[in-house]
């Protein structure tokens, strides 16, 4: 725990005894030292530790976004009067509670499949940053447009816990039906009713769509695809990233993917907010294209037929896989897109389009399961963007084992049937 920051000057002043024209220091005057600055003492070591993002090959630090550690944030929050935090008791996570928010910041999240995506968490992180900006005291409202993909899941407790950990003080579920204009009407009444200081969207999919609809409905400028966000300014690129514009964070903005750090300090409350009083208050009629939409149907992605660049989960076979029937069955059962190393593609065991790597496809998937792949540099280049890597390899010293978050030193030919069996039992 950080001690308060020392103030050597103040200390010296207290120890100074002015006597007969000579200035003397009374070193023995220890008790007088409490003239602390009140600011906490910086702990560079801890700051570095907090910005450590990867410790597999060599240490990598990301100091572009300063982030407080959980403990620091907790201590901070106790200092602020508008914020009350439950005391930290060991073994039990603290909860950050903002009873009377000074202002609101909306974070519009998609929560597809009832799960916050990486991008959703970044949107919440950005909103959190804006809520804590300046004097702080703002509350983050996670806005979920129900009827989007998985609005119903948003009502589960499970989900709200996730939202709290991601930095949401409040949760607002909008009932706007499935149509985009319905959603924008609900959004509009929420904005008009709650007057948030900022509304942050993701620059992707429905979030991006909703942001623009809202901007047009409100007649208010949208600051799209923010690339850099601090408490003082929001910056976005334009003209093919040759120019940029920086502003004080505007009211409506969308944020680019991987541009804001997710919130990682102590969980927030994620209290359900009822729009009840506001629901009618907005009253603005939806800009009437509801009637134009005749039907809506969601077609889930079929991982087996998705292109490698689009999928979120790849199961990949290398030279260490010999049973390709089992491999294909496994990919289907895991609902993952099959991939392969070049050696496998060269041998014609998998199509060329399945090749992962520098000369194949560079993935943007969340998860990569590598079976019998050594992890040559050209191959690893293809999976730099994968957050979760699982490796199954007989060689403890393979580079892929080194790269993996879950590394299993075992024979792929034996693990595959075991996985299939387990999945079969699960009825997947």
């Amino acid at each position: 725990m950080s001690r308060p920051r020392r103030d050597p000057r103040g200390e010296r002043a207290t120890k100074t005894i002015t006597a007969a024209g000579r200035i003397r220091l009374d070193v023995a005057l220890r008790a007088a030292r409490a003239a602390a600055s009140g600011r906490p003492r910086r702990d560079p070591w801890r700051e570095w530790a907090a910005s450590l993002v990867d410790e597999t090959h060599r240490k990598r630090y990301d100091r572009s976004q300063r982030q407080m550690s959980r403990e620091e944030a907790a201590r901070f929050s106790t200092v602020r009067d508008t914020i009350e935090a439950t005391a930290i008791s060991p073994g039990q996570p603290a909860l950050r509670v903002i009873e009377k928010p000074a202002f609101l910041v909306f974070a519009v999240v998609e929560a597809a499949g009832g799960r916050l995506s990486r991008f959703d968490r970044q949107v919440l992180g950005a909103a959190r940053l804006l809520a804590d900006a300046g004097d702080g005291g703002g509350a983050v409202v996670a806005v979920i447009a129900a009827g989007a993909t998985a609005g119903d899941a948003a009502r589960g407790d499970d989900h709200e816990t996730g939202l709290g950990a991601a930095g949401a003080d409040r949760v607002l579920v909008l009932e706007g039906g499935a149509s985009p204009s319905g959603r924008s009407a609900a959004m509009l009444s929420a904005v008009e009713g709650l007057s948030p200081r900022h509304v942050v969207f993701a620059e992707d999919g429905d979030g991006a769509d909703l942001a623009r609809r809202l901007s047009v409905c409100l007649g208010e400028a949208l600051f799209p695809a923010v690339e850099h966000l601090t408490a003082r300014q929001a910056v976005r690129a334009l003209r093919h990233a040759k120019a940029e514009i920086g502003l004080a964070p505007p009211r409506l903005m969308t944020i680019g993917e991987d541009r804001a750090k997710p919130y990682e300090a102590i969980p927030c409350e994620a209290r359900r907010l009822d729009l009840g009083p506001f629901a009618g208050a907005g009253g603005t009629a939806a800009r009437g294209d509801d009637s134009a939409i005749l039907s809506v149907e969601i077609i889930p992605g079929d991982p087996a037929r998705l292109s490698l660049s689009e999928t979120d989960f790849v199961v990949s076979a290398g030279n260490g896989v010999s049973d390709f029937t089992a491999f294909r069955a496994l990919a289907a059962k895991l609902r993952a897109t099959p991939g392969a190393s070049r050696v496998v593609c060269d041998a014609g065991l998998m199509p060329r389009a399945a090749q992962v790597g520098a000369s194949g496809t560079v993935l943007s998937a969340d998860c990569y399961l590598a079976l019998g792949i050594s992890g040559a540099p050209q191959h690893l280049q293809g999976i730099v963007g994968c957050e979760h890597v699982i490796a199954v390899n007989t060689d403890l010293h393979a580079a892929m084992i080194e790269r993996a978050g879950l590394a299993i030193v075992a024979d792929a030919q034996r693990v595959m049937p075991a996985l299939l069996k387990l999945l079969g039992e699960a009825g997947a």
Partner: protein
Amino acid sequence: MKTVVLLSDARHAISGRATLSGLEARAISLAAALDPAPRGLHAGGGAEGVSAGLGHGLQGLDVLDLPEGADPVPALAAHLQAALGKNDAPGIVLAGRRGEGGLETGLVPYLLADALGLPILADAVALRQGEAAGTLVVDQAMQKGARRRVTIRLPAVVTVHPLAPPPRPFAYAKMRRGEIRFLPTAEAIGDTAGGGNGSGSGEERPHRARPKLMRTGGTAAGAHNLHVGPEPEEAARLILDYLEANGIRRYGDTRG
């Protein structure tokens, strides 16, 4: 089904020359599948750059004369409004989801739809004629390869997503033969003051590259998670647990 493709004043990412935006080239190929004679509509200084659309499958191109830097929405809206009143009114107005090389706000189609009072659907990757006359089935791109299939009554504005099928290849002779009509700008309609260009009051300055967040992982469980020589069953268990813990997939009840 008469289709109009909006062509923006795009700039090439490397050379900065006027060019046809890649998204709009995709929009043209979607349009050409619905309309044997899709037309392009561009408001701006000239046809340089956008005329490439003719080489990618447009049959004709209308260019509304507009001074450099002027807001194209009123001119486009006026032109389309007039066209919508006519007999062979366009059913579909296609656009790219973002401009390229300009302000890149992606607001123009929304402002236009608002001015025309048309519904708008974003991020189309496939279009086909609906069963009922005057309807269109739009497949919208969603995360993880999912698609939202929306049937919409026309006329409508639809924006195109980068995952739409690649454009038809460019043929110089088709561009040369394509017909370009230069039209004076009609009286502007609609108010677009609100949306603005997204630049707000900010001044443009040279771009400074900022790193994206690094995606690295596996540290969810904290330490490096290495298992040497587990039984296959145990290994399988570990893998599924990891997948579920990290929210990659759910496989029902795997606890036997």
